[in-house]
């Protein structure tokens, strides 16, 4: 379990938890730390977070399963989030989704065979002004046209393989 | 000495014959009524006991005898127990004066086919049929039941009302035949039955005896849908059976009265006189059953109004007309 985070990280997080008035405030930070280190949060990840936070695993799991950008199932190296909320949808996010499925050869929720990309719809990226928006890894792409997708994917793949 | 003995023997034989006939006739009248009513309603009627259900009366008798004889806790025991006997007794006694055939000539003796030829036979008959109301009224009263009491009261009121019409209907017949003896009345009808001579009286009489026998459409005392079973609600077993038998014996008595007074008694062509008498009684009985199968029950106030407001005045008028006619004819 300790392999999920380094000893140092764990002590650091524990210290930060102690400093906050209520450990619940730190749940997201701990979970993000685990996700950043492992790509996703496994059962052990939740249990580790519970130990760090001094909460029950259930209390951590409540948060972990609530947010769609905390991954409780294995994902690829880069996760593609396509916003399908009203603004993006009205500006063609459906087309983007279809195009991406075509390009990657996977259905939403699946990971490419090389473990590079996971395709996920999401309900909002907070980028309504730049609709349609796509987030790949930690990069946000606004005003995406279907034609741009191939180039974006190529650059992201290149970056991911480094 | 010998003569007296013979007379007594004859009377006993007649009594036996008449009682036997009347009682078995009453029993089969029940069966006949059930059968005829059933056929009128497109049913079979009793057909399980014996061929065509002919042993049904026997089965009924056995059943009634075997049933528990219930006496309500707060009933007037003795009156309650005696009331059915009054009902049957009066009906049977009435038969004493009814001439059921022309006098027979056997071994040189003339045997009157009547148990006792009273010269005031008609009055006797009336007296007994009026007494019959005691059985009903006392039975209803002694049961300590509201239904029975109401039934008894109704029976009393109804019988008193229709007795009057009955009496008034007979007066023309007596006036015409100038006798109270039933034999004489029958004799006077040799040429023409009174029914044709006094049609109005006949009509009133028929209606009145229907009411007298408490049969539809005048069966107010035992109106099932209001009074459960009226005056005999609380009776069971053979006591109930006695009321029942009494009712049918009464039907025969009234039928014979109708026969004697209006239908020419035993007179008739071809057949022996007793035969004619029986046929006429049965015809009357059939008519009664037919009425029961056809006419619905009257309302109680209609019943009383009909008796007092129509039958009684009509009867009086009829007497008047008859009297005038008799006077005019001298």
């Amino acid at each position, binding site marked *: 379990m300790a392999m999920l985070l380094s000893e140092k990280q764990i002590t650091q997080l524990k210290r930060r938890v102690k400093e906050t008035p209520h450990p619940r405030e730190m749940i997201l930070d701990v979970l993000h730390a685990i996700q950043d280190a492992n790509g996703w949060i496994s059962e052990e990840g*939740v249990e580790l977070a519970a130990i760090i936070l001094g909460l*029950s695993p259930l*209390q951590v799991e409540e948060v972990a399963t609530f947010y769609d950008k905390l991954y409780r199932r294995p994902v690829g190296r880069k996760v593609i989030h396509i916003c399908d909320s009203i603004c993006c949808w009205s500006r063609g996010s459906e087309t983007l989704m279809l195009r991406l499925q075509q390009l990657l050869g996977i259905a939403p929720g699946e990971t490419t065979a090389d473990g590079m990309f996971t395709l996920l719809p999401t309900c909002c990226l907070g980028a309504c002004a730049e609709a349609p928006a796509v987030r790949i890894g930690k990069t946000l792409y606004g005003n995406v046209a279907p034609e741009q997708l191939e180039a974006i994917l190529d650059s992201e793949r290149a970056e991911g393989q480094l | 000495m010998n003569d007296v003995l013979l007379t007594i023997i004859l009377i006993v034989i007649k009594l036996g014959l008449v009682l036997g006939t009347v009682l078995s006739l009453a029993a089969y009248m029940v069966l006949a009524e059930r059968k005829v009513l059933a056929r009128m309603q497109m049913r079979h009627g009793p057909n399980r006991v014996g061929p065509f259900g002919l042993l049904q009366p026997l089965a009924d008798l056995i059943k009634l005898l075997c049933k528990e004889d219930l006496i309500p806790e707060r009933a007037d025991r003795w009156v309650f127990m005696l009331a059915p006997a009054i009902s049957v007794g009066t009906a049977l006694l009435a038969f004493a004066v009814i001439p059921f055939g022309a006098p027979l000539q056997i071994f040189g003796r003339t045997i009157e086919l009547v148990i006792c030829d009273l010269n005031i036979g008609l009055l006797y008959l009336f007296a007994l049929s009026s007494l019959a109301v005691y059985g009903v009224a006392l039975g209803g009263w002694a049961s300590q039941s509201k239904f029975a009491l109401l039934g008894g009261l109704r029976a009393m009121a109804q019988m008193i009302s229709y007795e009057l019409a009955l009496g008034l209907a007979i007066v023309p017949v007596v006036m015409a035949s100038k006798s109270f003896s039933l034999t004489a009345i029958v004799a006077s009808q040799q040429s023409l039955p009174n029914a044709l001579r006094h049609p109005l009286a006949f009509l009133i009489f028929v209606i009145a005896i229907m009411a007298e026998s408490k049969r539809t459409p005048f069966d107010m005392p035992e109106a099932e849908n209001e009074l459960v079973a009226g005056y005999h609600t609380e009776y069971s077993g053979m006591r109930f059976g006695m009321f029942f038998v009494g009712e049918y014996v009464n039907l025969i008595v009234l039928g014979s009265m109708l026969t004697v007074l209006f239908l020419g008694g035993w007179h008739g062509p071809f057949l022996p006189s007793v035969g004619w008498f029986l046929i006429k009684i049965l015809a009357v009985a059939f008519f009664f059953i037919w009425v029961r199968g056809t006419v619905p029950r009257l309302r109680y106030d209609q019943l009383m109004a009909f008796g007092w407001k129509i039958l009684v005045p009509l009867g009086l008028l009829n007497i008047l007309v008859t009297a005038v006619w008799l006077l005019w004819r001298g």
Partner: protein
Amino acid sequence: MPTLIIDNLTVTVPEGTNILEAARQLGIEIPHFCHHEALGSVGACRLCAVEILAGPVKGIQMSCMVPAKDDMVVDTCSAEVLAYRAQVIEWLMINHPHDCPVCDEGGECQLQDMTVAGGHGIRRYSGPKRTHQNQNLGPFISHEMNRCIQCYRCVRTYQDYCGGTDFGVLGARQRLYFGRFNDGPLESPFAGNLVDVCPTGVFTDKTYRFKSRLWDLQEAPSICPHCSLGCAVIPGARYRELQRRRARTNKRTNGHFICDRGRFGYGYVNHPDRPRHPLVGHRRVTWQEGLAALQNKLQELGELFGAGSIGLLSSSRATLETQFLTKRWATSLGSDQVCFEAHPVRDQGARVAASQPLDRSASLEDVRNCDLAVLIGADPLSEAPMLALALRQAARRGARIVVADPRPVVLPMACERHAVSTDKLARLLRGLSRPQQSALPASLEELGGSLSQALLSARSPVLIGGTDLLGPQGILALLEAAEACSQPEHPCRTMLLLGGPNSFGGALLSADGPGFDSLLEGMEQGRIKALLCFEADPLADFPDRKRIRAALSRLDLLAVFDCAATATVQEADLFFPTTAVEESTGTLINNEGRMQTFEQVLSAGTPIAESAGGSHPPRFFTRDIPGTDPQPAWGTLGALMGRCADLGALRREIEKADARFAGLSLLDANGEGRRIAIPRSRPVALQPAVANAVAPDQLSLLVTETLFGSELLSSLSPCLQEAIPAPFVMLHPQDAMRLKLEEGKKVTLATPLGDLTLILRIQQDMVPGVAIVPRLRGTALESLVPGSEPLPCRIEKA
């Protein structure tokens, strides 16, 4: 106090009342799911919509979220509102599995009621239904997530009200899942309340699974007999079998909920080993024969040795009526050897508790509303679980909870915990009552000072203590401390945890009569030749089992009247079966002095399931129903005294005999009960406690109650067996280290009562120098009884 009009009726309600509750005061029930009186409103289910025609807000509003204001005009069933509700219901039913026939909630399901009331009959939505996998939530609760309507009542009950942390809401949106992180039993001792609060069949009682429908159950208002709090319950029975208990609302005591011990401890009523027939020796006899044998023997003994040779013992399980008649019968026999508790410490403790003026005694409602609760020698979750829940409500309102105890007291919320050894508890209390002249040891000085200050400055403080640990002296000290810490306008209330559901009644009746030790001495000296036990189990309840066994064996006659197969029943010369609480009527007085009556739920009899062997009930007819011999103990006593069995007359007689029971005959089992009239304040003569000498290399052995397995009746309940822990001993890490023992390993506990092999648990929060074992009936720990002076003991590796 706003006045408003609801459905053309005017009502005035306190400030802050919402429209839903205002309407309820008028008798108008607005349909709702998520609102619950104890949990409050969240406005999640959208069903309680009403139309507000005039007032600060208008239009369709959720009645649970809108506080009543002056001049509001509300229409609870306008056409628009009805259509709205019908739509809400239809939405809620979209994913419902429609499995009512195989759902235990059927018949008492709010969703069913609302669906029918909302006029939704045919499912119009033809899309697929969402499904979920269920979890195994342990022996008490069944889980069926497909039926969920996401009202959040369960989470609000479990996490917010009861303080459980292992159950919650997972996922988001359409996928909401109410469950645990993994399969496993729910940890909260109040988990059973999920059954009551769930408006549909997601959580159902596993022990009652597929047994009956509500409409077939015989139900009556009753009292939980498993601790001294006297919580209101509604047991349900069918086919001569007690099948479940659910919570009844009594705002003065338990509120809306009950603990799992109360909910699932009912099984003793149907226990297959329950003795149901009078026995002479071990031979089954009729009541007449049995009673004749008893009376002959008593007469014989009375003639030979005098009436003083007959001792009578009742218990805290017996009803007030039984206790009263026990005393009456003793008087009529001419014996003064009558007592009401076989455990001397609990007996004396209850007598001290009952001898004080009751105006300071706190109800659970007072605890819920307090702003400071100090628990000294009280372990609520073990001794009186609902007190823990009441304390949590106080803590949620911001109250400070302080615990001073040698044991690792666990409460369902955060609290200040001070490990104080047993002998120091009474000194701490004495220090509180006499702060000026206190001679507190240095380690307690700070705590004592701050507590005393806090109690004096709190608005509504409550001082809570348990008889087992404090003993009569401690209880007396606690009462004095409360007195000393009271301000005229802010009295310090007290709550004392007693031994059983009617300890208080027994204490009131015994006054300064003899205790069980004096009866025991009489038995040992041969003065007492006969002991009559009315629902009492001296063999298991008296702390020194060897001594009591020897004393009982000297008796000429041991007659036992009981409803369970207790240890004493095995030894009895004469046995008479009595009814369980649910099988008769009676009165119990809880730890705050509240008289509460309970009604008969079912008639005693062998359950059909048992007598028919699980198959069709018998196809022959008999006049006798099997197993109907048990009689209420007060009825049997009445018969022995030649009285007619008229409960009303008996209650009037009790009222007349003792003014403190005034109002007993007027009690309504459905009501809130009635505090007994204030008793005469009379000091109780206390014997000084004899402390056992503990050598420096020894540990002192402390026996405590546990949630499951300590209380007699609930420990007999088959469905609780799974929850009863394996025998263990708790040690402080210091001691464990000194003795080189490890957590979870088997150890040998050497006590003067014998050697035991137990599992070791290491607990941080307890006092060092003490070994703590739970009382677990029917296990190796059977003979260890709480409430006695700590024994010296040694622990070694097994």
